[in-house]
């Protein structure tokens, strides 16, 4: 199936716009509400987050740690992911 080149360009533009918009939206998931001290620590490590729109989400499923989502980028530092990684490695061994 051939896609009309004009339509393709238009779609690409729209997608890029959406991604760029989302780049300014940062979601930080944590198992407990982050303290001001912890937020400062995070902003210290990522100074580029300072002028962005940060949304804090509580997610008990991740057990502990945080997950940072910015556009299509995800920084997963949760205990659940670590645990899942260990699980995956164990299954891969067998």
């Amino acid at each position, binding site marked *: 199936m051939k896609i009309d080149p004009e339509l393709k360009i238009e779609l690409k533009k729209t997608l890029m716009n959406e991604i760029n918009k989302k780049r300014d939206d940062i979601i930080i998931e944590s198992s407990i509400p982050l303290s001001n001290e912890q937020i400062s620590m995070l902003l210290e490590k990522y100074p580029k987050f300072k002028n962005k729109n940060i949304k804090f989400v509580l997610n008990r499923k991740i057990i502990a740690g*945080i997950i940072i989502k910015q556009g299509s980028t*995800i920084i997963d530092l949760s205990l659940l992911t670590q*645990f899942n990684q260990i699980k995956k490695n164990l299954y891969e061994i067998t």
Partner: protein
Amino acid sequence: MENLGIDFKLLVAQIINFGLFYLIYKKYISKPFIELVKEEEINEKNKVKIVDQVKKQEEELIKKNDEFRESMLIKEQEITDDIKNKTKLIKRQIIQNAEIEAEKIRSKAKKEIEAEKIELYKEIKQNVIKTSIVVINKVLEDVVDEDLKKKYTNSVLKNLSKNSKNYEN
């Protein structure tokens, strides 16, 4: 002659009588008798010949019979030997086939046992992993309290650049 008591006429008559008797005897008695005797002799000879022939034939028959029996014995022995050899050959082949079949079964069983062993080992490993995961889950649920969660989050934030993992779509 007369003094001697010999009557010449009587003598002549007796000679004639004897001559006549001889002639009659020779012609009518002696010849058939001799012929009969000769015939009997010939018959006897024939009988002896026949008996000889029969004896010969009998001997030949006995000889042939013996030869036949001997040949039969030889043939019987040959057939017996042949059967024995064939039986031995068949026996050997059966044993060989059985050995090959047994080896195949043994090899197959070995492979199956090996595969089962591996499968069982794998299953045990997976069970151990599953159990461990369940235990870890339980421990995490029970042990990780708010304080620990805070400590872990602090630690993660401190080592952010070291531990961070990025997943980009």
